[in-house]
């Protein structure tokens, strides 16, 4: 037993005391800042593998961006990826970052359904569904509950059964082969319920957007409560996104 205490002691303090102010170590390609410098916009638009960049004015759609950073390498005077990891919002159009703007991505408070804070404010149980996800987003969602990020301190947990859940977290571009299991899982979650899209693949299909093997109809039928960009989503992006949805 003494040995166990020794092991625990040797780990030191691993948890991040305040995830709302924590910084991601090293370089992190978070919220892009686009300057008003004139560059060859055709080349800029053309290099993006997921058509996330549009011209005149230059915009980057974080719902499509894979955060590969290639545009910032080729046009460092035009695009800079800031370390800001708070990228989640509840309105799809707010994921589009325009040139000359440098303001944080936030939620539209008017669009947050009243029952979300009232019912889920103290406790939110989520069921995750991977629908073509490549296992990187899934691993990062697992990491939200490790000893570093410890999301359950906020009463937010992932649960095994949709019957125990208050909402779904979807990762992956939603393959045709997963469309039905996803719908059935959603139907098994009791009302009221929320839907969170985690990762670029889930939000727009990402690099798979024009794959004929997808079936994204689920998204047309239901209201999305939170978009969390990233490839994969960083645990801090996810936790902060959900916290701002719950207005904690």
């Amino acid at each position, binding site marked *: 037993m003494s*040995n*166990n205490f*020794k*092991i*625990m002691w*040797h*780990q030191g303090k*691993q948890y991040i005391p305040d995830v709302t102010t924590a910084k*991601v*170590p*090293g*370089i*992190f*390609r978070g919220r892009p800042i686009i300057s008003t410098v004139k560059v060859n916009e055709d080349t800029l638009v053309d*290099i993006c*593998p997921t058509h996330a960049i549009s011209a005149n004015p230059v915009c980057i759609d974080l719902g499509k961006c*894979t*955060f*590969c*950073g*290639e545009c910032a*390498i080729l046009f460092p005077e035009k695009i800079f*990826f800031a370390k800001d990891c708070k990228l989640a919002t509840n309105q799809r159009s707010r994921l589009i970052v325009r040139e000359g703007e440098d303001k944080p991505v936030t939620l539209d408070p008017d669009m947050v359904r009243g029952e979300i804070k009232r019912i889920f404010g103290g406790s939110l149980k989520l069921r*995750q*569904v*991977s*629908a*073509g*996800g*490549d*296992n*990187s987003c*899934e*691993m990062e*969602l*697992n990491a939200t509950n*490790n*000893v*570093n990020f410890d999301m359950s301190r906020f009463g937010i947990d*992932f649960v*095994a*059964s949709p019957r125990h859940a208050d909402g779904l977290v979807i990762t*992956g571009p939603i*393959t*045709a*082969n*997963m469309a039905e*299991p996803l719908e059935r*899982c959603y139907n098994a979650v009791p009302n009221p319920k929320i839907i969170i899209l985690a990762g670029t*693949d889930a939000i727009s299909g*990402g*690099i*798979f957007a*024009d*794959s*004929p*093997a*997808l079936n994204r109809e689920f998204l047309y039928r239901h209201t999305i409560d939170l978009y969390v960009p990233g*490839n*994969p989503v960083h645990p801090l992006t996810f936790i902060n996104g959900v916290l701002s949805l719950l207005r904690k």
Partner: protein
Amino acid sequence: MENVTIHNNTTIALSEIPELAYDEFMEGNLGLLSEKPERHCVLYFGYRKEELLRLICCLADDETHLIHISSSIVNPSTVLPSFTAQNANFEKFERELHENFGLKYADHPWLKPLRYPYNRFDLSQTMENYPFCRSESEELHEVGVGPIHAGIIEPGHFRFICNGEQIMHLEIQLGYQHRSIEQLFIEKKKLLERTTLAENIAGDTTIGHTTAFVNLWESLCDFTPERSLSFARTLAQELERIAIHTGDLSGICTDIGYQLGNSVYGRLRTPIINFMQEWGGNRFGKGLIRAGKINYPFTPKLAERLQTILKAYEPDFDEITDKFFHLPSTLSRMEKTGVVSYGKVLEIGTVGMAARMSGLNRDIRTSHPYNLYGSTIVHEPILKHHGDVYSRVQIRKQEIKQSIGYIRTLLENVPEFSNTENPILTPGSDKFVLSLAEGWRGEICHAAITDASGNLIAYKIKDPSHHNWKALAEAVQNNEISDFPICNKSFNLSYSGHDL
């Protein structure tokens, strides 16, 4: 049998691959494999040639470091004798040919759908009507698990036939993750698009798959990478191995119910993936590996930082490992659980950890070296002989230590990084190229064929999980169903890598 032999990452003219009559092709390849455990099939696939189908078979010989390639042109509507009836290595490859092109086999023992691609030959085959092995016995019962599992993992369906708590049979139905990646490789023309696709084949093996792709692409474009590029790929590969193995040890502790191990291994993974973040801006290494260049040079400062991280990692890892490997309660869950014998892994043709756990020496880092393997790093595969959960866990433990050693060797001589410019890479025309890499799971194989104008006409990806899923089904036989999670985690196979 007439065949052409190449080394790993070699490009040859497509016309160099001999075209044989199917009988000769089959007899020849099966003959090459017969009684030769050092040889196995790394890839067997087909591509359309007008109305016909050209089958290409690639057998790797681990002793000679050569890959034997041969081909045969068949009419997809004829009924053929199967390789599988004589050698189970080909089971999934032939199921894939059947599913994609409607190729008929007279004597394939298990000709079931593999991954339900959107453009499968027979669209009447659907996820809902998969022909599961059934039992009519009143004493046995069936347990269905998935596609959505209890944890945060990828989807797949497991169907158990049990006698009480004991598993008699497990059948695994996959395909839920199918995104048509191979087709997208052909349709998307830009290099960055293809690299991004490679990064997303299996996100837990980003480095492994992207390395296989860029090595292949550089060979196809007749581009020789500088040492710095090979250095970065080798280093990233070993970092990925440490990170995922550590995470797996954490997962195995969870499945045993050993909370301390789960927390400590879980948090030990963090500094390693955070280092990937510091180096390339992504915890999984997305954006790091690029053909012909690197956007994030490995600086001496990063080298120093990595030394510090490993120095802090090692004592904590050793301490918890010493505890974990000496607890009777954890050992009793791992020893003799989920056993696959040497004979069985050889029959299935497993690769990577799932081969080395039972004494079958398969490791591309020694058998078909690439990047800095075989030169700066002379790899000695770690072999175990019991083929149980404990063997797989021991391999992880020892490979982590080994990778730390390799990284220290690499850090002794950090090359200058200069190439951050986009090189001009033009694929050769009418070529065939094959690339093998040893990811943390095992052997990754990518192959490409180009037409007369250098456009891709076939791109083939094989994740090690392709071979190894069958080993999981074998491993759980006669075990308690409650031991399924630990067996599953000890293999930790990829769904997306299999479904593509």
